């Protein structure tokens, strides 16, 4: 591998460098997320035809499924960052792991609520203790556990490392959520989108879904960078670079 890649990564992991990097990328990420989100909403709510079985109710899929994917994806990112934080004790990895938890909790919450709204009409119940729903609820509790543990320590870094440990243990739940519809007989339907092999969904419905997926990913980047910047300022509040930011932004 080229030598400059690890060097660049090493430089980027210093708090002031990442602060600037994240500040430069964040406006682009949120702008693109909003644009793609609007396109996906138009495609999903207006252009896509009603489902032949579910009528217009299925349109919840355009937020439910991307949010469900994000709930797992963010947990994966949090798990990797937690691992790096525990093994190499990189401050930025701790911050990224802890900043991911609330965003992941938001997406998991949206997944559960929209799924509940969808299920009420299609299954006739708001909630059932089916494997997919239960494991997704466990995912929410894991996120809340990580957030709670992090904030229960006086020392931020100690809290981050302890919470990272919980995040790492909880990662076993991610494949359980993903494969629950195959491993158990669930009320929840199986996956309709497959990376390998044909998907069982019409093209007019699949593109808004994938566009919304891209939008939520970009939103995550923007939100993560915003939270990370704030956390870095708090964590390094005694340092010179933070002092400079506090002074210049105060006059602006």
């Amino acid at each position, binding site marked *: 591998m080229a030598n400059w890649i690890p060097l660049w990564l090493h430089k980027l992991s210093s708090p002031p460098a990442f602060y600037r990097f994240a500040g430069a990328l964040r406006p682009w990420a949120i702008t693109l997320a909003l644009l793609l989100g609007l396109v996906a909403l138009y495609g999903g709510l207006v252009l896509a035809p009603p489902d032949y079985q579910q009528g*217009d109710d299925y*349109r*919840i899929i355009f*937020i439910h499924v991307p949010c469900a994917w994000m709930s797992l994806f963010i947990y994966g990112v949090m798990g990797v960052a937690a691992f790096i934080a525990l093994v190499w004790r990189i401050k930025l990895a701790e911050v990224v792991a802890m900043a991911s938890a609330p965003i992941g909790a938001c997406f998991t919450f949206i997944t559960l609520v929209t799924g509940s709204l969808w299920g009420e*009409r299609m299954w006739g119940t708001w909630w059932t203790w089916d494997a997919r729903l239960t494991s997704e609820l466990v995912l929410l509790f894991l996120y809340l556990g990580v957030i709670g543990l992090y904030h229960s320590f006086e020392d931020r870094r100690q809290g981050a490392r302890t919470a990272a440990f919980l995040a790492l243990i909880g990662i076993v739940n991610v494949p359980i959520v993903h494969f629950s519809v195959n491993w158990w007989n669930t009320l929840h339907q199986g996956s309709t989108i497959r990376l390998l092999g044909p998907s069982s969904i019409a093209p007019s419905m699949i593109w808004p879904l994938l566009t919304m997926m891209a939008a939520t990913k970009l939103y995550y980047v923007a939100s993560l960078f915003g939270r990370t910047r704030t956390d870095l300022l708090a964590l390094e509040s005694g340092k010179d670079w933070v002092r400079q930011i506090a002074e210049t932004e*105060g006059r602006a």
Partner: protein
Amino acid sequence: MSPSLHAFFAMGGYAAYVWPAYGVFFAVLLIDWLAPQFRRRRLLRELRGRLARQEARKERTVTPSPLRGEGWGEGPRLP
């Protein structure tokens, strides 16, 4: 309201399920977006306050005013 727009908002009779789902989506993400913004502003305000206090303390202790004839360590003690 035009009939097509009306049909759009009616969502084939599922308006009470589709729109709240989208409402929750936007409301939760809006909170997720705004909460750290407010925290950031509060943090920077606190930082500026701390810097101003440090600056004031430094002026009192490091350069005592010869006009007032006060020595080192005068003035109120700050935490």
